[in-house]
């Protein structure tokens, strides 16, 4: 089953074109890595998929499970199972982590026509998910991301993902700011969530994350286009040669 189809996607921000014709198909159960140098459009792609304000889509389409995503609000996409693990998770002072988790889960359940979980069932569920990312229960009662270390913030993102069980997860630079231990814990959490019905797109600058979460496909994004696609070995190649060769590649290579 096709989870996500991006066809000839062009997007601008403040009138400047950042995405210049992206084509990408992700099937159910696949993990795709999107790599590329700074400024290639990686973050724009994840923001556009999640529906962030401020981007204009000038051409192309995004189909998620066959449905056009572009006209949907961010929360409508989230409720349908599109999840973005943020590169910089925001702090929300005074709002406890457990409150946000519960509100998010119930929003998704409501869309699915399910009853809200009561406090006890919710707590049981959340505890089981916390083991995945080795988070202590005290995190539930702290304000969302406030005073969290870099690693704790990223683990919290994966906890949310584990709880919401999205069909399509976009992991934006999940490895940035992580030491090696935190990287291992986060990766184990993500790997545990790999599933035949769940697709993932990993956006990363560095190859090292892909040692822990091994992708089915690797794409290189440069100057708003996918210029090369391959399997996990492509990442190794990039590690050796860097991104400089891309600029010499002729238009339209890869995709």
């Amino acid at each position, binding site marked *: 089953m096709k989870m996500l189809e991006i066809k000839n996607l062009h997007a601008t921000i403040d009138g400047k074109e950042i995405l210049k014709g992206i084509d990408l198909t992700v099937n159910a159960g696949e993990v795709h890595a999107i790599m590329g140098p700074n400024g290639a459009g990686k973050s724009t792609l994840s923001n556009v998929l*999640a*529906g*962030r*304000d*401020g981007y204009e889509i000038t051409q192309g389409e995004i189909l998620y499970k066959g449905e056009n995503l572009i006209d949907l*609000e*961010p*929360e409508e*996409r*989230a*409720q349908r199972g599109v*999840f*973005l693990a*943020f590169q*910089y*998770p*925001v702090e*929300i*002072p*005074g*709002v406890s982590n457990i*409150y*946000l988790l519960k*509100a*998010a889960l119930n*929003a*998704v359940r409501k*869309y699915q026509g399910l009853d809200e979980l009561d406090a006890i069932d919710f707590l049981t569920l959340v505890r089981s998910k916390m083991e995945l990312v080795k988070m202590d229960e005290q995190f539930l009662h702290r*304000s969302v991301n406030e005073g969290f270390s870099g690693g704790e913030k990223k683990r919290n993102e994966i906890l*949310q993902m584990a709880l*919401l069980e999205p069909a399509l997860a976009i992991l934006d630079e999940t490895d940035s700011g992580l030491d090696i231990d935190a990287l291992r814990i986060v990766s184990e959490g993500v790997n545990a969530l790999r599933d035949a019905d769940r697709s993932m797109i990993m956006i990363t600058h560095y190859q090292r994350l892909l040692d822990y979460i091994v992708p089915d496909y690797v794409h290189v994004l440069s100057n708003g286009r996918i210029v090369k696609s391959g399997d996990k070995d492509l990442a190794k190649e990039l590690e050796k040669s860097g991104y400089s060769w891309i600029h010499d590649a002729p238009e339209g290579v890869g995709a």
Partner: protein
Amino acid sequence: MTDQTQQLETLTRKEYSAGFVTDIESDSLPPGLSEDVVREISRIKNEPEFLLEWRLKAYRHWLTMDTPTWAHVQYPEVDFQAISYYSAPKKKTDGPKSLDEVDPELLRTYEKLGVPLDERARLAGVAVDAVFDSVSVANTFQDKLAEQGIIFMPLSKAVQEYPELIKQYLGTVVPYQDNYYAALNSAVFSDGSFVYIPKGVRCPMELSTYFRINAANTGQFERTLIIADDDAYVSYLEGCTAPMRDENQLHAAVVELVAMNRAEIKYSTVQNWYPGDENGKGGIYNFVTKRAACRGESSKVSWTQVETGSAITWKYPSVVLQGDNSVGEFYSVAVTNNMQQADTGTKMIHLGKNTSSTIISKGISAGRSQNAYRGLVRMGPNAENARNYTECDSLLMGDRCAAHTFPYIEVKNPTAKVEHEASTSKISEDQLFYCKQRGLDTEDAVSMIVNGFCKQVIRELPMEFAVEAQNLLGLSLEGSVG
């Protein structure tokens, strides 16, 4: 303007749900203020001579005063001769003796406002005094409270039944010379609540008053007096609404609290007077003097307020810490939207030894509103080891509103300690997008973020009031985000 901002702007234009007018006959004095009007109010209320004298002294003093101009608010001059100083729903006899005698139209009004006047009150454990325009119309649970010697009744009734208590305490915390609006209130106050908790009694239920301004061109000048004698405890709630009208209406109340030795008073307000429309037309001028005296040693007074309504708010619930080891607290959420203006805060006057005070103020501004915190912390020469902690946080929604902080600190004792922290922040698009990406719609996301910001204050409110306050924040707090 981004889509998200536009959505928020739309949410901001929610209608004021308490804005209906009740069609009820009322007896009003014609507009205008003079000694005759003051005498007439006193006569209608059949007041003893001492009270009339006091009113007249206040009135004469008021004539010598000028409107205060130091607050950070702007409005056209109030024409005090255009206001009616007394309005009461028409009564068949001498006034309702039980709920059955209260005009059903009036009861429906309170029902619409969610005030538990009848059986629901018993379940909720809240005793309610309801003030409609100028007079108190219903008072529940008086008998049950009376068993413990607690007096909870309209002030006008207390004047008849307990004149010596009134004489002993009225005007001792807020003297009529205190300020312009306090003097005006002292001259023309029409009703309000009176509470007396005898020595050693812990009031078994929350006491509550709902204020409602219904008639047009009427001022509401209620006066509340609460006395907690030695070792007594009481928690008191106050809620306010008014219909939507194009004219501005004046509300100049006075609240006096007296806490004797080891007594504790918790006073909570959810104020949702009509704020005017989005262009600043109409709305209540809320010019209120609230002050508590911690007279006894180790006494304690907490003010908690959630202020979302009124066109203009001018209000500084204060505590005079006279008794040694006494404690004063002020927890406030003040929300301004559209063209609203608020200048609110507190005064903590430390006179006794080892007195301590805490001020937590959360100001939220949206639309084109102006929101100011103004607070005074004064440590007197005898306030050995007095302590104050102040935290003032402002949240801005959009780029056309403003937040201001005016802290005044006066320390005359070298052992006193004063701490002040202040912050200003914005609801960021990042926070909103984050919540939306987790499946929450804009309305829920804003409500959640704002409630988080106000958490320290909301948790001080009694449970049933906290829920109401949270809903109110959800309704009136959505604004634009920059």
